[in-house]
């Protein structure tokens, strides 16, 4: 049994070697490359899902924004598959580490901002001041808009980290409670077990939704800036 609740979030090492790198690369095995015109079931299902998602997500962008399709599709596939694999028992989820989510959020957000400032400088600067503000509010509002711009990558990273970590912690806690209650009162343990099942279903949904939200927000920042 773990010493405390948070040992399952420690980065795994095996005899000093950081195998967390292998764990991050593991989901790529589950997405084989397509060799033929008509593939096996696994690849066909994955291709259909990717086409569905990319059409729905990239429809709002113009030509310049649609050059980001590959980046955003691989992002949603990576975050979705990593979160779903983290629901397997005893597994380590890389997206619970704030360092990794910051490493994903900051470059993507910075890329959209720099693109906006480079190609449409006036429009990008105009985002700092909403239309129709009273004149005496302008300095304060520019400061507030600047702060809200710089908080975007932090919010992206912390949102993903907190959601996945909180879900895993809840599963640990309620599972431990079910085990402890089995000796005391089996009927209460049954209720707790049903709560655990519902929570696991929720976690499956959260895993995929968080991936979607992350990617959607990045694409929105892109849309503002192209």
């Amino acid at each position, binding site marked *: 049994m773990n010493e405390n609740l948070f040992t399952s979030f420690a980065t795994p090492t095996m*005899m000093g070697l950081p195998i967390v790198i292998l764990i991050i690369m593991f989901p790529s095995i589950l997405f084989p490359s397509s060799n033929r015109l008509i593939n096996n079931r*696994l690849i066909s299902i994955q291709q259909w899902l990717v086409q569905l998602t990319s059409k729905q997500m990239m429809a709002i962008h113009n030509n310049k924004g649609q050059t980001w399709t590959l980046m955003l599709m691989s992002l949603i596939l990576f975050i979705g598959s990593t979160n779903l694999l983290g629901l397997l028992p005893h597994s380590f989820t890389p997206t619970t580490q704030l360092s990794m989510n910051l490493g994903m959020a900051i470059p993507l957000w910075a890329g959209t901002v720099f693109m906006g400032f480079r190609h449409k400088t006036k429009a990008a600067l105009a985002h700092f001041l909403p239309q129709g503000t009273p004149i005496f509010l302008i300095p304060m509002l520019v400061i507030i808009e600047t702060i809200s711009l710089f908080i975007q990558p932090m919010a992206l990273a912390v949102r993903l980290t907190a959601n996945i970590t909180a879900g895993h912690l809840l599963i640990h806690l309620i599972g431990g409670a079910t085990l402890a209650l089995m000796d005391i009162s089996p009927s209460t343990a049954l209720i707790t077990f049903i709560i655990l099942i519902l929570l696991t279903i929720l976690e499956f949904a959260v895993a995929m939704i968080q991936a979607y939200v992350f990617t959607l927000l990045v694409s929105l920042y892109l849309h503002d800036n192209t």
Partner: protein
Amino acid sequence: MNVKIEELPRSILMWDFIPKGITGVFQRGSYRYYNKYVNKKGSLTGVSMVLAVYVLFNYILPFLQGTQT
């Protein structure tokens, strides 16, 4: 392996331990597994075997980290 047992050490010394050779071993092994278990109608069993091995590996990982339960 078309090598006699007594000639095995000599043939092991002739293997190429360059990175391309090592990755070739892993690639050929994974292609064999893929074509046998995944690239057919019942691809779910192939994928679930990989996931089961992943779960077991994560279970025994604390025991490999130097007597730390």
